[in-house]
């Protein structure tokens, strides 16, 4: 088991030539039988395992990851955390996530660089202002912080934005000061290390190739490293959910889409918090390393290719130049893409399934990273208690049958518009 991290362990290791460090987590081999199997070693899967062990005392748990942990969307996002949602089905869940972020590093003994530098959503019209007011008020009602600020206040907060030659002039913004960013990879490693310390097996290079079924129930999985059985099996493989549920003839209200993110070359501090543009899909923040991290819309067609095309690249850069024309000579260093489970109403699913033994955590659309702690927490609850927690009660798999959609954008059952 790994030792505790502190400034003292750092100094001790500095003097010992850095020879005292031990693996952050054991590279476990799969055992034949577990209480709970979590498929997917991303942030959500690892967090689920951690909370199963920590909150529910279920430690006979394995996380099966087909590659290396954190190599999917957990390592491909734009690292934003926020709880600025509109609808009652969403807002309390994301606020709980925010509360978990706020105590995460002490809880995990791992610095995930959770940085509450503020998330500012710009608005450019009266109608947008009213929509943001509605949202900001929803946030207040659920105990989150929100402020509706006017153009002058935005200017004071973010003087680097284009106020004077804009096609869609900035009129104000919705500010959540507790929002911000976290170091995405560190979140993965922190959960992995903490789960490992509680006895969870993290099994890498172990791809699920099939399900073992008995009497209609799922009782295990076939993997590239042999069969593994468990009483309960939870899927947390957003982006690839349909590939696994196809093996069970389970059709889902989900499409896989590609979302590209970008980082610029490193810069001295320019953008203090997170800024989102209201008249194009664009969001930007600056990493501690100095690169501007930004992104935009999905490409808009079903894809499993983990790479996007130029129209989105152009769209994003155009929005950047609408908002911050002083960045014209700054260079895009790297772009990468992840696979999004785009759901039919833009909101996730954390639920049991019609198949006994199988539990589902999917449909994160763009929003998976910020949800990581609460997603793990609620999925662990659902797995352990065999029932959803109040926080994920709205994230039902069958909500499209009853019509209880959670459609923040109001665009209906067309995933590429969410």
């Amino acid at each position: 088991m790994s030792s505790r991290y502190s400034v003292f362990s750092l100094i001790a290791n500095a003097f010992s030539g850095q020879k005292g460090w031990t693996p952050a987590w054991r590279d476990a081999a799969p055992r034949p039988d577990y209480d709970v199997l979590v498929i997917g070693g991303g942030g959500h899967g690892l967090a689920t395992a951690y909370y199963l062990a920590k909150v529910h005392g279920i430690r006979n748990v394995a996380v099966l990851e087909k590659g290396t942990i954190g190599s999917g969307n957990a390592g491909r996002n734009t690292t934003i955390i926020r709880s600025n949602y509109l609808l009652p089905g969403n807002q309390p869940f994301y606020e709980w996530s925010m509360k978990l972020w706020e105590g995460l590093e002490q809880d995990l003994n791992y610095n995930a660089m959770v940085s509450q530098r503020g998330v500012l959503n710009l608005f450019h019209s009266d109608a947008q202002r009213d929509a943001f007011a509605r949202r900001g008020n929803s946030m207040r009602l659920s105990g989150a912080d929100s402020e509706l600020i006017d153009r002058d206040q935005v200017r004071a907060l973010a003087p680097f934005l284009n106020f004077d030659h804009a096609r869609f002039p900035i009129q104000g913004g919705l500010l959540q000061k507790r929002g911000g960013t976290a170091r995405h990879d560190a979140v993965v490693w922190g959960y992995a290390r903490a789960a490992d310390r509680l006895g969870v097996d993290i099994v890498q290079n172990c791809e699920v190739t099939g399900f073992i079924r008995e009497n209609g129930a799922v009782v295990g999985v076939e993997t590239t490293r042999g069969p593994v059985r468990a009483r309960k099996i939870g899927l947390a493989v957003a982006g690839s959910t349909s590939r696994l549920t196809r093996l069970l003839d389970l059709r889902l209200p989900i499409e896989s889409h590609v979302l590209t993110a970008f980082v610029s070359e490193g810069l001295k501090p320019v953008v203090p918090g997170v800024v989102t543009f209201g008249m194009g899909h664009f969001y930007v923040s600056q990493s501690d390393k100095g690169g501007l991290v930004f992104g935009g819309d999905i490409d808009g067609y079903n894809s499993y290719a983990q790479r996007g095309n130029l129209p989105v690249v152009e769209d994003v850069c155009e929005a950047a130049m609408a908002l911050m024309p002083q960045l014209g000579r700054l260079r895009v260093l790297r772009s990468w893409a992840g696979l999004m489970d785009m759901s039919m109403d833009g909101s996730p699913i954390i639920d049991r399934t019609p198949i006994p033994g199988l539990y589902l955590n999917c449909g994160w659309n763009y929003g998976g990273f910020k949800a990581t702690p609460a997603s793990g927490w609620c999925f662990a609850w659902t797995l352990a208690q065999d029932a959803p927690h109040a926080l994920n009660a709205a994230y039902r798999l069958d909500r499209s049958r009853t019509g209880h959609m959670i459609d923040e954008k109001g665009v209906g059952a067309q995933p590429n518009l969410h």
Partner: protein
Amino acid sequence: MTRFVDGGLIDRTRPLAFTFDGQAYRGFAGDTLASALTANGVRLIGRSFKYHRPRGLFSAGSDEPNALVELRTGARREPNTRATTVELYDGLDAASQNRWPSLDFDLQAAGGLFAPLLGAGFYYKTFMWPAALWEKLYEPVIRRAAGLGRAAEAPDPDAYEKAYAFCDVLVIGGGAAGLMAALTAGRSGARVILVDEDFRLGGRILSEREEIDDAPSLQFVARAEAELAAMPEVRVMRRTTVFGVYDGGTYGALERVGDHLPVPAPFTPRQRYWKIVARRAVLCAGAGDRPIVFGGNDRPGVMSAQALRSYAVRYAAAAGSPAVVFANNGYAWSAAFDAAAAGVPIAAIVDVRAEPPPVQMERANRRGIRVIAGGEVIATSGKLLSSVTVRARGRTETIAAQILAVSGGSSPTLALTSHFGGKPVYRADIAGFVPGVLPPGLSVAGAAAGEYSLARCLAAGAARGAEAANDLGFTARATPVPQAQDKPITVSPFWHVAQSRGLAFVDLQNDVTAKDIAIAHQEGFRAVELLKRYTTLGMATDQGRTSNVNGLAMMAALTGQDIETTGTTLFRPPFTPVAIGAIAGHHREKDFRATRPTPTHAWARAQGATFVEAGLWLRAQYFPRAGEADWLETVKREVTATRASVGLIDVSTFGKIDLQGPDVGRFLDRVYINTFSTLAVGKVRYGVMLREDGMVMDDGTTARLADTHYLMTTTTANAAKVYQHLEFCLQVLWPDLDVQIASVSEQWAQVSIAGPRARDVLARIADAPLDVSNAGLPYMGVAQGSVMGGIAARIFRVSFSGELGYEIAVPARHGAPLARALMEAGAPFDITPYGTEALGVMRIEKGHVSGNELNGQTSVADLGLGRMASTKKDHIGRVLSERPAFRDPDRPTLVGFKPVDPKDRLRAGAHFLRHGRSAVLANDEGYMTSVAFSPTLGHWIGLGLLARGPERIGETVRAYDPVRGADIPVEICRPGFVDPEGERLRV
């Protein structure tokens, strides 16, 4: 002197002045900033990212990890610019970055003392206590120290362009292989584009002293350039970098049009972003020299062997003397020989191989160059390199040197080949990765494919070029190929001098050391992706072109796995960093998106209108007059005048869809919830359409102009969406229906007049025999005729304001004359132009829903329009709108609101709470959708969605608006504050 007296591809007749860190220097045309600094003896150029270590040039190309500078000043300041790729121009001004107070004396370098503490993963293990200090103290310090250059602080003053190009064969790279590929394909008649990132074609030929066809190889380049220039179907693009491979044979490329000039020439962009659509492409991007990892390998003066050769041969310069060469391969030896021939004294060649090939030994002997075989560099010294300590066969020796030229072998420049996910494949014989599975249509030739000798590059270029052309039906011949040396590559894999002194750098820019790799190994971050993320190896601006292979080879050694099994990470687009401004092109600031003016825009502007964005449209928001205190006073006047007499507004922005055919009526019955097949000719009906999921999509009026001819209007916001939806229904759902549709939104200007005197105004512009009397054109009627003495017009008697109203449509070019004619005709009635604000006020007074209510989250029942739905037919959205959630009686439903205290202002976005209930989400009952100050009633009014609203008329609830500090009681009322019976409409 560090510039040799002769030689080099520089134009000594064209001296250029430039400054670096304020110091004036001179170079020549043909120099890069890097070569000019070298020629001026400047060896210290930058500071490293993490430890702020002094750094000099490592390379002579776009893989440079160290020499990043801020180029130009003011609004043109361009951070992190590689000195090695900047073409020198007169007056160039560059500055070092990431140092304080100066490059020579950087206080932050003190951080280097803590290097033992700052190993990989350091940040993740500390700064956790106390939690509050992360944002306040630790992070700001880290952020200030991190980053590299500074962004400009004013908008980029230069212009950028986007362009498309199409070709049969795209050749990427204009070296030996690329020239042959382009010549071969070009000779077959194929349309060829040859791009090269350099300002001069030739690639490595420019830096080597080789022969082709028994003549200096530069002559071959000159001949090839001339032949290519003479081919009409061949285009050569210098200063152009292909940065990404995309689907459908699309290649993203950046042309630096004006970067070699002090400012771009008039009417030309600084850079041009190309989308090159190529049926085939041949990658001839060459290879880069790989460093060796040893203690002190980052000192200014340590550079790649090929860089030494390039500066010496191409630029006739060397930043010091003598040079020691440290290598494991024969290619580095020829670099040393070429450099020596150009004038660089070589103190020794240190080769890790105990027995270098005898041919090379003999060549070294012939030149009098000392060889230390079986040797390793174990230390260096000097802030700027002054000596090198070598250990060989158990003996240690220190050699004075200002340059240490290093080569651990070559790494093919294969980044583009992995943009589709193709994993590079390790080839032990050349100790390097070569391209794996390629993007469709792309082939690779020459050094980029691991074929290093000049002869093989020429032959492979010709072969790939011919294959590409032949694939496309041209007849190309890959022979004859010019003659050149075909020396076999000899390399002995070697990555790391384990027993060396001082920090040994793997990634020079991100300061990733050998020790960091060891920590990552100890802590289990062994897979290449984890290694990269944990140590930041390969995440610098060169994407690890000089560091990845060493890093993973060292990890392989630690784990005991071979390099094939360890694998490598993928390169991501862009190949080299691309300016954001270039990709945006003209779409920035005011020109971010197109602006759609209405047909009466100029007229409205002349009337003093203030405009507001409505999607891409600009609409008149209100028409202020002198003496009015604020917009509210203006809007009050506009509403009052309209309701009292007559007002005018341009409504051309509504979507207009022309539908014709025998089945239009049946078709509309299926897309609208209500029935249109029964609509009489000459009549107009309000309709609501749903999405298939049961929510409201759009509303508007549709007129029946003739038996088989309807005209639909949509909301401004949904014009394109509705049109696409109708095409979907016709082409995908019901192709059997005989209906043709066309968008005529742009063809017709439409002006609305409203108010009790509207008919009087209309009558004055209507041409006989158009009858606009109440009988001739009743409410919800449509008439066709002409106005203003012969202008074809359609007149719809509809009203959004609740007043007697007409919408007059004329061909778009007559829109402004129509507005002027109406103003003239209405003058006796004080006709008042009004804008979208007054329009909004009047529709809220009437209780009509608009965009704020049609937000995609509402059903017809929510909006109080449920009665409209015909039960006798199916329509889009009917089935799913019967789901349980839609029938929930607690669903928020549209009602009106007025403040209990008439002085209170209402605000849209406020939530409703029952009196006495606490302000928590569980008590949320809905929200206010739209508000307006009603001049007619003298107080604020609103529309909103409230749980069981229609059952609660007369009740008061809290309008809770904490984001604006408001919490007021409001009374629930019926929507429809003015003329609820609609009597004014029918007069």
